[in-house]
């Protein structure tokens, strides 16, 4: 399969066809990934009637912000929104406060029973008590329906701890020895040497924690009763998934410029926006970080 156009063309005709086929297939994949977002955005700013008629497929029709106005006037929505930020930020910081020192300790060669402690952590990857005992434990601790339970009971994930420990283990020992020569203790070594050197790993673990916090709904749904403590995802679940099934509610709203469908679309758009804002900044980190974790599982 030599190239007809001479030595400058490294690819044969078959190769170029292959290249195009791959590009087109991936183009289709990207389009299908993106389409739901485009549709939801279009529906959120279209009139309820246009969506009901099926006019909205790609572009918004009869543009109106009624749906957004309706959702944003709902106080419960903003409370849930604020709660999610609270759980995400405080939860992630709490997780890091447990994981970073713990992983540092586990990475110390001079830690007695080191392999025992490592097994102690890793065992929870493969064997966990399950839903009911975990729930009863939280109940017995008397922290049902508290923000504290959401923050603390799911603070450490063994996978993240091990990822962090692996990274600390790969920090060259000479850094630590140099610091010890200068009289640094373990706290100073961790804070002044390991933490600055491990930024990509810390950001990756922080990201994993934050994504889990931001997206989690199940335990919040189970543990929390008080409406004022619910995160956005539980609020969304109640509205989107449960109400969508009931038809009478849908017809109720059709009279206005918004409909049930456009209202849901607006909620979805509003809850994705923070992710879209942060996403470009974190992308380079998780690409690096996941590779780090993926190779050394």
């Amino acid at each position: 399969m030599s190239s007809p156009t001479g030595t400058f063309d490294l690819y044969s005709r078959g190769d170029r066809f292959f290249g195009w086929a791959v590009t087109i297939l991936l183009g289709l994949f990207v389009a299908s990934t993106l389409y739901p977002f485009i549709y939801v955005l279009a529906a959120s700013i279209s009139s309820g009637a246009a969506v009901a008629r099926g006019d909205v497929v790609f572009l918004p029709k009869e543009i109106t912000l009624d749906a957004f106005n309706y959702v944003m006037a709902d106080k419960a929505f903003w409370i849930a929104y604020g709660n999610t930020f609270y759980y995400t930020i405080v939860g992630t910081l709490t997780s890091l406060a447990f994981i970073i020192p713990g992983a540092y300790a586990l990475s110390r060669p001079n830690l007695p029973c080191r392999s025992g402690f490592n097994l102690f952590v890793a065992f929870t990857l493969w064997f966990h008590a399950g839903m009911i005992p975990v729930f009863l434990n939280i109940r017995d601790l008397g922290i049902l329906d508290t923000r504290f339970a959401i923050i603390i009971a799911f603070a450490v994930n063994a996978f993240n701890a091990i990822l962090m420990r692996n990274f600390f283990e790969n920090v060259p020992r000479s850094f630590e020895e140099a610091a010890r020569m200068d009289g640094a203790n373990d706290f100073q070594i961790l804070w002044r040497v390991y933490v600055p050197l491990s930024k990509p790993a810390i950001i990756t673990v922080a990201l994993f924690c934050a994504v889990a916090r931001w997206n989690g709904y199940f335990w919040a749904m189970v543990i929390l009763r008080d409406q004022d403590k619910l995160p956005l995802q539980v609020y969304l679940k109640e509205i989107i998934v449960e109400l969508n099934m009931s038809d009478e509610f849908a017809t109720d709203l059709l009279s206005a410029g918004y409909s049930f469908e456009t209202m849901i679309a607006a909620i979805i758009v509003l809850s994705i926006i923070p992710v879209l804002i942060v996403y470009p900044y974190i992308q380079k980190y998780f690409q690096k970080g996941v590779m780090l974790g993926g190779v050394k599982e």
Partner: protein
Amino acid sequence: MSDNASHSGLAPGEDYSDYDLPELSLADRIRQNFAQNWQVYVMLAPMVIYFLVFAYKPMLGLVIAFKDFSLFKGIWGSPWVGFEHFETLFNDPYFWRAVKNTVIISVFSLIFAFPAPIILALMFNELRHQGFKKTAQTIAYLPHFISIVIVAGIVVNFFSPSGIVNLLLTKLGMDDPIYFLTMPEWFRPIFIGSNIWKEAGFESIIYLAAIAGVSPTLYESAKVDGATRFQMMYLITLPCILPTILIMLIIRIGNLLEVSFEYVILLYQPATYETADVITTWIYRQGLQNNNYDVATAAGVFNAVVAFALVITANRLSKRVSRTGLW
């Protein structure tokens, strides 16, 4: 700094203590060790306490699978009943239905969802236009960061009788809308399909990392030998990332019983329990909705034991086949 420094008695730093250890009593050694390492212990303590309280203590709670549990008497006050709950469980056709559905969904996911990120990574790797490649990857990773509740919301919306899917179908000439989410036969395709939509792109990162480690000289020599790009992908890239694929496969098999129940809860409804109800959702309804804590825990024990056995088997298998294991 040499390895035999400790034998000379002139080791730097902490090695001095090693040298002294044999002469001290156990209590003294513990005291000395703590004096030296107390900072490390202090750092380790919160995490150890966390795991004791929130991971190991609940494991003790598993005993209620063997007890007639009452919330008032508590875990230890409730009377033992032996294997009664397991008998109830194994005689319950709905439990077996859940087991069957769990296995079917897992196996179908293995067949359809597992290869998806591998194929994606291989294709990403073939893209020559860097701009398009970056954009495509950015978009492919995005759904991973969207909450499962939102994904469920979009799915419910798309597949509802008045949703976009039915709209397109009617435009293609179909008469009546299909109530997808109330039809048991549609649950699995929708569930697995939307899961692929959400996670395949992000999971491809791991394989892309593996591909990045493939030596370029392999491609160069293949080019000299006149290999086509497809042959290079098939004969070089794929074999080179096989260890990663195997590790991911073991993890997958180890988690065979762990169908994403959070997502099932969002998508299923009584009409589709027939194909949608999995072990964990069954536990959820029995335990947290009907307060049958003990029977639900028995199901949890069953689940955990089978899962644990699967992990160990999968790991042993992979060690035999490829000498790579998780431990």
